[in-house]
């Protein structure tokens, strides 16, 4: 708690009076009153210490080597590339491959399930009921994630009263993991996409229809381009955490269907080879950063050409 206070208490008093006298007087007429930039410094310091520094240490660990654990668990620091070359073992390549494949499949399924829902909410639900429907989509999201995922275990259990009665036996397979992923991340996708659809100027669509466009044409040429930024953001917001997931594959895949997250967890809690676990984490981040860069590039393009 001591370090926490060091950050939060000094910032508490400026909170009562952010606009410092000096910059205001000079700039108020040109740019409108602004709050001074130093108000961001407590958070910046916090991030440097508790987010950037840990990531730097993670990289240092990924480049270190796990010494002989019988000799006392020593970690040898330096520039060893062994951890990274071990990532290219068939075993780990397969785990990375199936994680990406399932996260990708989960994202596609989430879009397929969630987009029509968001569209329905924005377009067909009566205005006075929209708040209620948004609430209904949100409530599961605010209920314990673990408890809900565990409930799927009961639902999908081939010996249980639900899936068993239907003759389904998919628990502890990729199918169960996929259902868990879609279930867990659906609200995260639906809400931003709904917000984008809700903001859209629907008179454009009506105009297109008046001019003789078929509904599908109007959707493809107006609705879709206009909501693409929200759609892209929602897709990324779902894909990244899915690829980093380890609770869902553990509970619904039963440890038989591994994600990268399970490998990382194993290295830190079970097998205890922190340097290798760090390298796996960096590997995961490296792959995901490709998607983030693709997203940023397409988002800036979108902005430039004013979709």
């Amino acid at each position, binding site marked *: 708690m001591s370090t*926490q206070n060091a*950050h939060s208490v000094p910032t508490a008093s400026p909170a009562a009076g952010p606009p410092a006298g000096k910059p205001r007087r000079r700039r108020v007429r040109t740019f409108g009153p602004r709050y001074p930039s130093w*108000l961001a410094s*407590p*958070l910046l310091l916090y991030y440097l210490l508790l987010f950037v520094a840990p990531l730097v240490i993670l990289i240092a660990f990924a480049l270190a080597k796990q010494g002989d654990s019988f000799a006392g668990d020593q970690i040898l620091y330096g520039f060893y590339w062994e951890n990274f070359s071990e990532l290219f073992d068939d075993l780990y390549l397969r785990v990375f491959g199936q994680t990406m494949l399932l996260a990708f499949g989960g994202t596609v399924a989430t879009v397929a399930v969630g987009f029509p829902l968001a569209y329905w909410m924005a377009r067909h639900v009566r205005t006075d009921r929209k708040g209620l429907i948004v609430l209904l989509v*949100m409530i599961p999201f605010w*209920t314990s994630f673990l408890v809900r995922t565990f409930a799927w275990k*009961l639902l999908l259990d081939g010996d249980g009263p639900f899936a068993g009665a239907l003759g389904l036996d998919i628990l502890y397979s990729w199918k169960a993991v996929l259902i868990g992923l879609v279930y867990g991340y659906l609200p995260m996708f639906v809400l931003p996409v709904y917000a984008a659809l809700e903001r859209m100027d629907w008179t454009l669509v009506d105009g297109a229809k008046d001019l003789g466009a078929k509904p599908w044409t109007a959707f493809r040429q107006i609705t879709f381009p206009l909501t693409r930024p929200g759609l892209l953001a929602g897709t990324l917001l779902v894909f990244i*955490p899915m690829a980093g997931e380890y609770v869902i594959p553990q509970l619904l895949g039963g440890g038989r269907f591994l994600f990268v997250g399970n490998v990382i967890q194993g290295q830190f809690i079970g097998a205890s080879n922190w340097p290798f676990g760090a390298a796996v984490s960096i590997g995961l981040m490296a792959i995901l950063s490709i998607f983030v860069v693709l997203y940023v590039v397409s988002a800036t393009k979108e902005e430039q050409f004013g979709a």
Partner: protein
Amino acid sequence: MHNAIFRRRLLSGWGVLVLLFLYLPIAVVIAYAFNTGKDVSNWTGFSFHWFLDAWETPRYQNALLLSLKIAVLNAIIATLLGTLAALALGRSRSRWRIPFTTLIFLTLVVPEIVIAVASRIFFVKAHESLAIFPALSWKTILLAHVVWSSAVVVLIVRSRFTSMGPSLEEASFDLGAGPISTFRQVTLPRLLPAIVAGALLSFTMSFDDYVLSVFTASGDAETWPMAVFNDVRFGVTPAVNAISTVMFLIVAIGIAGAMWFVSRKGGDPAKELSGGRG
């Protein structure tokens, strides 16, 4: 015309189906909270005794209290840090704005498990070399939670702050109000819905978090999600279901209240509460 009606019905049907899908597991949890027996695959009769049982389990009580403590402190600290940064970034033209915004997005884009293991290494090493750094405990859980939640607060509050526009603050200055009273009387009241939404979201993220907590905690700090996970693995959970049922009701009522609060203040509840993204 018939086509339009058909499409509308199809979409409505889909909407209802997906909502049922969202509530199916919750219904199962609630149903089994009232089951007499311990066996989750058999319905043996209706009873309230798991609620009593849960209430009398000290381990659950401690875990819930610990989670509550962390979530409340996290919400306070994250809201404070995040709101200040949002005010600074909202209309800033500083050259630090873009790198800082990137950093904020980065905290949300890096997978949780990566932040979790990085924090674990950091806390262990920091405590080894500097005694003022807390060892792995509830304090380190809190320190890790704030990183995430404050980023969410910045995004929500900033999006509201920028969309507000500067004209009312300008008017306030023109009418002779000082910076402090302008903040208190003009900026703060208009930002309040976003600040409240950010605080609520921070609270929930922290209260429901398992991954960050399990990596930044030591054995003796067991938060509620950690207790749930430890028991869920062995499949014996009627008491957990009972507590979850109570929590579901609290959350449902709480969110309904929050939405009412936000919409009364003139905000868009869907946007504010979904994180102001998109």
